[in-house]
């Protein structure tokens, strides 16, 4: 295709046309280049700050550094709740390419229980993204760790991280007081500042763990790390260390606690022991109990079902929430009320023939002793726990005065102990009955209230608390399970010295006279105990059942037997321990509860040490 002569003639015109077009091309090129420059200026100058921030957000991740949870110790500094290092298997959602495949690969290395898989499924659905790991298996053992380490290269997105896991070395012994932590949930987060819980996985659910969550938790720290696009952390840019949670020292003596447990044996029941001089809780036993460690990383369905359906209700905190009829363990208080109101004196007596009759009524209010106690004064009524004497006194006092006086000992109201979930018991009154049952108060109900039966309910803690107030001569302290706070005095009731002396002497005779209901305590004790037994009816025996005998009930099935109660304090001269013991379906208080209480008091007086505050007087 050689240029022909014809075209040769137009070469000049051709070139001019080309130059014109080339000029247009140059202009077009410059315009388009200008567009690029404008876009660059837009991105790099105008929006530079915006993109700088985004670039930083891209590479800098803020990781929360959760604080170490404070330890919980007993009064001697023995750890009741500690943090043990454990290894956890986690998946990082962004790095897992094929979830099913990864899980299969893991299963070939470490066994996964059905529960673990189910829990993982739930957590996986709620994953928060941003390279937040989803836990798959807690508490890997050494062998599993090794297997995972060897196969790490095949498992993308799978990581093993070291954590501190809450551990309760005394297991069941502290479950009802220390409580436990569990996986944090939405409701927990709503009650706290979520930013402070950014890296926290566990939350105090019950007991001290729950009450003192704020102190135990501490303050979250943070770490700014540079990561690449795959989420791999390359270096720490800057970090603020967390502030660990405060340690909490309990007033409990774990050895006393365990000793008290042993004394209850396999019986269901409760022991609450207080130091009457400051309100410190020395032992707080509720049996049966459960291993709190089961709950830390989520309890299995089988375990929970077992605990929850157990007839003896191990999950139930009897000391704090159990409400029992106090039975005869309040008679000394009713007696004091009588003395206070001048209705009786120490010499006042009546004749007990085994039952009591209200005027114009055929109903026999029976004494536990069918044959009666004969002539009975206040001392004899307390020592032998005569019911008829207190029927009469209660009738003279009336429900209003009785309610008033007993409430001064903390009955019918929460003691204010620093544990959550305390029940208030029930101290019946006219207004209560009107309000709750819309019924008038019957005189007969006053009578049985006088011997701690009927509507009246108390918690073991309340019984111990009222006993501590009595031991202290009418003043007292709010019960508390933690040391370090000042004892909080409560003004209870003014008891004239001579009333107190009379009642105390009788309570002493309960434990050391030949006829005392707790006479078994007279042996082997080198100190003096004031105490009162009680037997709370579970099975409402017919008042007219002539075969019934309170002391011989071996033929009654165990779950219908009476609760055995005992309250007391020692030594009488300078009380160092006040306690309440309840043995469910134990039978008679004197025979069952009193010896247990005696041994616990003896252990404490032999081995216990007073609180550090009273050990070293402030300079």
């Amino acid at each position, binding site marked *: 295709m050689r240029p022909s002569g014809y075209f040769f003639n137009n070469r000049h015109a051709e*070139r001019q046309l080309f130059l014109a077009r080339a000029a247009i091309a140059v202009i077009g090129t410059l315009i388009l280049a200008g567009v690029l420059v404008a876009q660059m200026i837009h991105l790099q100058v105008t929006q530079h700050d915006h993109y700088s921030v985004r670039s930083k957000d891209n590479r800098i991740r803020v990781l929360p550094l959760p604080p170490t949870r404070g330890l919980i110790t007993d009064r001697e500094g023995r750890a009741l709740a500690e943090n043990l290092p454990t290894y956890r298997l986690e998946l990082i959602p962004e790095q897992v390419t094929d979830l099913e495949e990864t899980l299969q690969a893991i299963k070939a290395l470490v066994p996964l229980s059905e529960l673990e898989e189910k829990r993982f499924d739930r957590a996986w659905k709620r994953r928060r993204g941003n390279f937040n790991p989803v836990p798959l298996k807690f508490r890997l053992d050494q062998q599993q760790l090794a297997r995972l380490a060897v196969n790490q290269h095949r498992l993308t997105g799978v990581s093993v991280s070291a954590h501190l896991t809450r551990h309760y070395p005394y297991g069941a012994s502290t479950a009802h007081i220390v409580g436990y932590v569990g996986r944090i949930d939405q409701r927990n987060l709503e009650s706290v500042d979520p930013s402070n819980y950014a890296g926290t996985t566990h939350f105090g659910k019950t007991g001290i763990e729950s009450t003192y969550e704020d102190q135990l938790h501490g303050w979250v720290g943070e770490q700014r790390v*540079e990561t690449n696009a795959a989420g791999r952390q390359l270096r720490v840019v800057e970090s603020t260390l967390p502030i660990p949670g405060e340690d909490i020292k309990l007033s409990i003596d774990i050895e006393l606690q365990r000793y008290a447990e042993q004394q209850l044996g396999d019986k269901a029941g409760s022991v609450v022991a207080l130091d009457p001089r400051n309100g410190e809780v020395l032992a707080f036993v509720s049996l049966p109990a459960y291993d709190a460690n089961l709950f830390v990383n989520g309890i299995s369905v089988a375990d929970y079902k077992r605990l929850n359906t157990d007839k003896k209700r191990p999950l139930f905190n009897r000391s704090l929430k159990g409400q029992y009829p106090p039975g005869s363990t309040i008679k000394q208080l009713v007696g004091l009320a009588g003395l206070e109101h001048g209705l009786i004196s120490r010499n006042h007596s009546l004749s007990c023939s085994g039952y009591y009759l209200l005027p114009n009524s055929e109903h026999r209010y029976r004494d536990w002793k069918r044959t009666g106690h004969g002539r009975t004064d206040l001392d004899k009524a307390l020592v032998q726990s005569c019911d008829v004497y207190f029927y009469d006194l209660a009738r003279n006092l009336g429900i209003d005065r009785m309610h008033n006086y007993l409430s001064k000992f903390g009955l019918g109201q929460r003691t204010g102990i620093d544990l959550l979930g305390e029940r208030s018991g029930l101290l019946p009154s006219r207004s209560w009955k009107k309000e709750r049952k819309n019924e008038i108060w019957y005189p007969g109900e006053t009578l049985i209230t006088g011997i701690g039966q009927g509507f009246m309910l108390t918690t073991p803690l309340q019984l111990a608390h009222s006993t501590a107030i009595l031991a202290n001569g009418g003043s007292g302290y709010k019960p508390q399970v933690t040391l370090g706070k000042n004892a909080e005095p409560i003004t209870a009731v003014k008891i004239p010295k001579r009333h107190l002396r009379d009642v105390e002497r009788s309570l002493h005779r309960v434990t050391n006279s030949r006829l005392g209901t707790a006479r078994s305590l007279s042996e082997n004790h080198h100190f003096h105990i004031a105490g009162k037994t009680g037997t709370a009816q579970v099975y409402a025996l017919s008042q007219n059942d002539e075969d019934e005998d309170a002391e011989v009930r071996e033929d009654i099935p165990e779950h219908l037997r009476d609760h055995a109660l005992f309250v007391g304090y020692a030594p009488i001269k300078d009380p160092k321990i006040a306690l309440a013991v309840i043995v469910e379906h134990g039978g008679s208080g004197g025979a069952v509860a009193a010896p247990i209480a005696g041994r616990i008091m003896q252990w404490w007086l032999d081995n216990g040490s007073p609180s550090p505050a009273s050990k070293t007087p402030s300079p």
Partner: protein
Amino acid sequence: MDLATLDSEQRRNNSWISVQFQRIHLDLPLLAMLTVLAAFGMLVLYSAGDNNADLLVRQSIRLLVAFGGMFVIAQIPPSIFRRYSGAVWIVTVLLLIAVLAVGSKGGGAQRWLDLGVVKFQPSELMKLTLPLVTAAWLASRSNPPTSRSVLISLALIAIPVLLIAKQPDLGTSILMGASGIFVLFLAGLGWRWIFGGMGLVAAALPALWYVMKDYQRQRVLTLLNPEADPFGSGYHIIQSKIAIGSGGFWGKGWLNGTQSHLDFLPERSTDFIFAVLAEEHGLMGVIPLLALYLAIVFRCLYIAAQATNLFNRTVAGSIGLTFFVYVFVNIGMVSGLLPVVGVPLPLVSYGGTSMVTLMAGFGILMSIHTHRKLIAR
């Protein structure tokens, strides 16, 4: 008159060294600029490839091959290209059909022809052939071109462009179509045709939407709103804009780009290498690069203006303008002005095939510029 112009032009800017280069058919200014560009590209690539020396070695080998190819092609007189372009066009179209029929797949598209020893990409050959054949055809007809010759030119362009679009390789077909259109435009395509064509394209845009494949539509949607799917289709463009924008005026410094070195920026040594440069060197790196590209384009247009006949002029101009289209499409795509099409940044992006083709194009330009005496004789 032509001879006189030639001589005076040659006298005017021909230093001794320049003349020596002309003797071996190289254009010194163009060669110098391309060398500077390649060197700058190596610098950016070193950072983009995470200081990988291996990558640099491989890229150097490609550059040597590409510059060698340019040198060889520059020795061939333009008349040869003109004479054989028609035959080559026919063969290449047949090869393109063969690719569609039996070609091996790479990255979801059929582009390669396996010749046993080497894999061959006929579309690269067509990139060179298309402006040549269009120019040869137009140069053999009256000028300005008649409607008939325009229609035939369009057919010459459309056949390979459609074949390549079907592979599918949208980037290449756009560049190729552009190179043909540039020849037509520079040859004096009538304004009726130009505006008519523009109107037709504007009218066809909605229809184009329906012809596009899903992934192509997605790319357009992503361009309009990348934040709609920040971890999916929008990821590339968002990360790229973050890289460019965070570079700012002075940049983060060579080897200090966080977007690139922490793997946030995808395909950073190939199609998105511009973002690495913009992040590390800032606007102060971008402007000189653009200036260098424009200088190369203008040198091409200057060579075209100095060329002695229509074929040479339009071929030289088309190659220069197509080179600019590479730059514009790549930077436009990386900075979020254009949808994502696979077009490399010339002489900077890592990769061999297109670089060799590109340098072969510059070889043709040098041939045109340094064979003028022969034509004049």
